[in-house]
């Protein structure tokens, strides 16, 4: 087979697996690309942030349907591409191809599941074994994971990471000098960045005659790696680094997203109905050219458009996936009760650009899309 990324991407949109040899080559080429990227990627707005997807391939397609297909929309994926879902291989292969094809439009951040020990426990290794008969594909991908960047800064204002903060990291420059090309260690800065969680109240109450920069605002995480951290630590990190907001993933949010610490930090979660049983919504964070933040919430892909576990629907070759997912105007999901209920919930309140709003409270019939067409067009048409 001749090397053609567009052909590979088209196959992957149809959920066709690529051969082992092609995957090996893809991973080699992507490593060459990633080795030149620093630990902290600089990305310009407008951009859409995607949280954990965990192998939920059909929901990744939903994300592209809602947010815009690559490369028209610029994306930052915050990690946890594999494990738990049934299609981790297809998901990660697609994202790697998109990265290779449009390196300036796709950024892939490392999550705690992009690790050998974790993927052996939570399903990716077993899936590779099942789909390819051996562990080679798993080896290629886990070697590639060692090259993923650790964090992103958007327009010097929004700091993005998979997990959270570390007591060893006070400045973004400290992240730049880490050696990231290795397996995630059990402890240390790299482990903390992918495992930590914010909590409203740390486990230990602050006591003792210490200065504000020495408050015990980190506590050991019950997950067994990383820390839990509070509001003061977050404020300090933003101040010291001249940043405005932290966006991260790593934790399930029933509404698809969560805003903490007076909007200093937010969590975005992009795997709806997690593990096909949690019943949660998902979202992507759409950042406009002036850094307006909007959580675009969506539910699980309608069942008639996806195959259930164990029942594979054959896609005819040459089928344009966009024909199966009708664009704006055709109400493909009208029969799906969950999406219909979701749409009915909209109340009528004017949308204020530049502020975060609960999408259930937005009436955007009067929405003026920003000059950059694509994201806004799809968002507006999705709602109408």
């Amino acid at each position, binding site marked *: 087979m001749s090397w053609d990324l567009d052909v590979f991407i088209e196959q992957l949109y149809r959920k066709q697996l690529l051969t082992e040899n092609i995957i090996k080559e893809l991973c080699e080429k992507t490593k060459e690309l990633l080795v030149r990227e620093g630990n902290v990627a600089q990305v310009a707005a407008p951009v859409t942030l995607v949280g954990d997807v965990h192998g939920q391939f059909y929901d990744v397609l939903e994300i592209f349907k809602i947010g815009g297909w690559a490369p028209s929309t610029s994306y930052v994926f915050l990690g946890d591409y594999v494990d738990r879902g049934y299609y981790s291989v297809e998901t990660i292969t697609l994202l790697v191809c998109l990265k290779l094809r449009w390196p300036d439009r796709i950024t892939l951040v490392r999550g705690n599941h992009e690790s050998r020990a974790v993927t052996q*426990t939570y399903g990716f290794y077993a899936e590779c074994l099942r789909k390819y008969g051996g562990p080679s594909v798993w080896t290629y991908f886990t070697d590639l994971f060692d090259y993923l960047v650790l964090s992103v800064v958007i327009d010097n204002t929004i700091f993005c990471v998979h997990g959270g903060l570390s007591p060893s990291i006070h400045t973004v420059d400290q992240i730049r000098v880490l050696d990231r090309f290795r397996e995630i260690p059990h402890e240390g800065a790299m482990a903390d960045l992918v495992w930590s969680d914010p909590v409203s109240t740390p486990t230990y109450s602050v006591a003792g005659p210490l200065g504000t920069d020495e408050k*015990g605002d980190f506590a*050991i995480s019950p997950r067994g790696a990383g820390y839990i951290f509070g509001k003061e630590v977050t404020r300090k990190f933003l101040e010291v680094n001249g940043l405005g907001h932290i966006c991260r993933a790593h934790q*399930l949010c029933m509404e698809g997203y969560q805003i903490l610490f007076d909007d200093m930090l937010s969590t975005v979660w992009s795997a709806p109905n997690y593990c096909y049983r949690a019943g949660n919504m998902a979202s992507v964070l759409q950042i406009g050219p002036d850094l307006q933040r909007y959580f675009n919430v969506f539910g699980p892909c309608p069942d008639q458009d996806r195959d259930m576990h164990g029942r594979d629907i054959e896609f005819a070759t040459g089928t344009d996936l966009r024909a199966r997912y009708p664009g704006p105007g055709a109400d493909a999901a009208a029969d799906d009760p969950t999406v219909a209920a979701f749409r009915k919930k909209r109340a009528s309140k004017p949308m204020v650009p530049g502020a975060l709003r609960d999408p259930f409270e937005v009436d955007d019939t009067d929405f003026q899309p920003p000059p950059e067409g694509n994201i806004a067009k799809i968002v507006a048409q999705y709602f109408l």
Partner: protein
Amino acid sequence: MSDSIAEAIKSEGSLNALFNSTTCGDLMRAVDSGSNKLASRPTHPICLDSELSVTEGCEALAANKITSAPIYDAAKGGFVGMLDYRDLVAYVLSVLHKVAKDAPPPDATLEVTDIVKRALSNKGDVPIKLISNLSHLNPLATVQASSCVREAVEDFTQKRAHRLIVLEPDSEASQFAGILSQSTIAALVASRVGKLAGVTNPKEKCIWPTGNKTLEEVGLVGKEVVSVIPEDTVLEALYTMHENHLSSVAIVERGSHGNDLVGSISMTDIKMVLSARSGWRRLYENCYDFFTSLRYEQGLEAGGDDRVPTYIVHPHSTLIATIEKLAATRAHRVWICSGASRLVGVVSLSDIMPLLLQ
């Protein structure tokens, strides 16, 4: 924590000041903030009626996320023993032992209770009072709420119990105030002298000198760790634990240079066998698959927060850091690995109790 206690710890070089100034009753009243989604304590003490069946007892432990509860006999009007997962495992092993070794695995639709019927010729559900302390590792040990914590630590060290029943005597009879476990003691130490407790500057050393020693220095590294391989069945793993009087085994890949830790199984995992329908079939699964499905479920139960596959520390980790990790994860043990996964030891709360007295 008041400065005088901190000063006393520094000058004496031991935790006696802390232990002697806190009573067991105080610990029972300490509030768990609930931010720990992975393992939170029940808000009120749980005890089990002695007539509950094995399945019901196991479900009660699992539902409340505890590993042990005292058994109360209403007829006798008092506690007759403790039930924990080790007793349930001992029970399952003893029942299955009655099945001939070369007989095929029993029919998939039978429950444990039906096996018991077969094995014990038509007796009904076995009440838990009969399997209380079947493992002989779970004696009924009590302590008064007014006793200081030091007594509890001494009990843990000398009696080798894992938990104590705290009694609060009132005018009529002894009132069950709660269970004092080794985890509670670890949480107390972590919250008062831990590096992250906000009491001292994390950049300075712990005020308790022994806490600053590494695990290697206190002699916890290098002892042989009982392990099984991924292909061993769950039943074999439970048998190994039972014979070695342990509540957990490591699952390792054996190599020429040592063993690589890939997972672990503990006796509390028996709840997946006993409380699920036809769950006992899982005893014949290979233990690594059982371990991964357990982690999968645990992540979902914790609201989607996946944990590391195995809790690990290093030979050069300090004792206080290890105690803080045990307290935060509410685990009973952590594995000591050198490098990425080379298993060189294990440290459990039982190992730590005697060190707290130093």
